[in-house]
């Protein structure tokens, strides 16, 4: 319990830091926020000044930050410059689509990477191992946006099996998820293969066999359990990259999600949306890593002791 509590406390300064980064963005981006909001509305300089007062931009920086943070705690992320809707509403309404893509991509990575890595590690230098090594080497190197185009070319244009542009159905999710998940499947395969080979050489495997454990039990209860720890850690570390990769994949496949929304908001300098997205992505990354730590702690209690002594 104290392990969970300690991890929670450790993430508080990071969460505050992410909100500071998001807050500072409005002052880092060239141009006046009040002018940007009234852009194209023929506002007089007096009206712009008035809005600047309303937004609190004339107050000292620390006061502005506390107001920003207070609004955040109430779930208020400001209003979009473009649609004048609440940013929180716009982000939340697009979240399910992004989560579906991220989740399916992770599923693709695990479903391909874990069995492939296990089989390859069980029989090093076999045919399966060589295929796995080749696939993972290509998989790590091929950029997901290029893989996406190749998949569209083959499966949408030539074979006509799947839609090239996402149409909201589940079949539209297949190509984006594979192109995003493939690279992580490749990393997982390499990681698990290496670990399985290492674990099979270790003493506890020999003693488990000596005790009369079946090969299946040795594989699942001992080797797989210990090999899965770095895999779980890796998934947590890569979550942020998968999330931003989902953003680019959304743009390619024309999916309406947080990622494509963030991309258009950056180019149109719609700062409140960018701020909201930073907070949202930062928080979910911290949350995922918290969960990963707890899962790893549950699989391998030694890590709990390690963080306690650090």
């Amino acid at each position, binding site marked *: 319990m104290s392990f969970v509590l300690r991890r929670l406390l*450790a993430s508080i*300064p*990071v969460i505050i830091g*992410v909100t500071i980064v998001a807050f500072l963005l409005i002052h880092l981006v060239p141009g006046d926020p009040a002018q940007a909001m009234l852009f194209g509305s023929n506002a007089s300089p007096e009206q712009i000044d008035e809005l600047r007062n309303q937004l609190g931009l004339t107050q000292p920086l620390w006061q502005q930050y506390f107001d920003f943070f207070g609004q955040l705690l109430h779930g208020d992320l400001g209003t979009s410059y473009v649609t004048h809707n609440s940013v929180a509403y716009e982000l939340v309404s697009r979240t399910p689509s992004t989560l579906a893509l991220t989740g399916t991509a992770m599923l693709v990575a695990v479903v391909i990477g874990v069995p492939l890595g296990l089989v390859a590690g069980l029989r090093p230098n076999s045919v399966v191992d060589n295929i796995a090594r080749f696939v993972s080497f*290509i998989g790590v190197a091929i*950029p997901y*946006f290029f893989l996406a*185009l190749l998949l569209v070319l083959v499966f949408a244009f030539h074979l006509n099996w799947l839609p090239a542009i996402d149409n909201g159905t589940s079949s539209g999710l297949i190509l984006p998820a594979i192109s995003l998940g493939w690279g992580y499947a490749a990393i997982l395969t390499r990681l698990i293969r290496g670990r399985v080979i290492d674990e099979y050489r270790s003493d506890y495997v020999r003693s488990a066999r000596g005790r009369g454990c079946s090969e299946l039990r040795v594989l699942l209860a001992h080797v797989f359990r210990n090999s899965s720890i770095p895999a779980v850690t890796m998934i947590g570390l890569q979550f942020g990259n998968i999330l931003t990769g989902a953003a680019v994949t959304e743009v390619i496949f024309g999916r309406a999600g947080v990622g494509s929304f963030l991309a258009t908001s950056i180019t149109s300098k719609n700062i409140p949306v960018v701020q909201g997205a930073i907070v949202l992505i930062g928080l979910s990354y911290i949350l995922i*890593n918290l969960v990963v730590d707890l899962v790893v702690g549950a699989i391998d209690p030694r890590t709990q002791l390690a*963080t306690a002594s650090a």
Partner: protein
Amino acid sequence: MSTLAIARAARAARRSTRSRYGRTVTSVLMVIILLVFLLLLVHPGLFAHTSPLDNSDDSLAAPGGSHLFGTDQLGRDIYSRVIYGARPVLAASLGGVLLAMLAGVAIGLIGGTAPRLIRGVVMRIVDVLLALPVLLIALILIATIGAGVKSIILALGVAYTPGFARVVEASVRKLRSIEYVQAAKMFGSSGLRTAVRHLLPNLVTEVVVMVSSAVGWAVLTATTLSFLGLGVQLPNPDWGSDLAAGATSLSTAWWLSTFPGIAITVTILVANFAGDWVMTLIDPSGRRAWTRFRALGGLRTSLPEEKA
């Protein structure tokens, strides 16, 4: 010694000479490939005789014949665009990693040696940046400073700095308690002198390992940014923006996007191979395998400790 043992020893000796021979071949090949990439960066004209900007009447020609990789809508030679497109990609990713390395080592040294207060503040900032994905940091920076190759270098530099800083700080903290560093301090060596003379040389291996594995990721991030239209602006050649430009006519002219895409893939492959090669050169036992994952970013507490 029994006959069996002699046979076993002979087999082991043969295997080690074979692997040593294999390692030499790999090294020679690796050096040649890296030299080719260096030439691509400094003098692309050696490989392509037509300009990547030359229009011709032969528009949208399929690969083969006088245009090896085909031509685009304006009749520009794709092969030449792929050759010349290497420069912005390589400059951005190598420049970005170099910048991240310099900044990361400096910040890591400060984080490892400075007084408690400064150290705390610096490393908390690093923690915050580690909590944001690399691509997001890069996007935010480019949103504030504008698009272009220089912006991508700066964005990559800032985005990869926290990873370097975190690893360097961890090793500096470990090194500080070692006897000769303690002795240097006792004999009156100043903080800066200790850092440069005693700590820095011991960090070289780790930093080289991180640089060699970061380059492949930097190529991916750099091309992602230019794919999104934030790097080199058309009509100038660049793998990422050419790939994006060709994507709209994917169904009719597949070669527009495919060749820049293959170029990116091959570059990342070579970067990964070179990374593995450097790893086996300086660390044959593979002890530092985790450093590679550390360099990719992540929160400190979720990382397993290195095997001693």
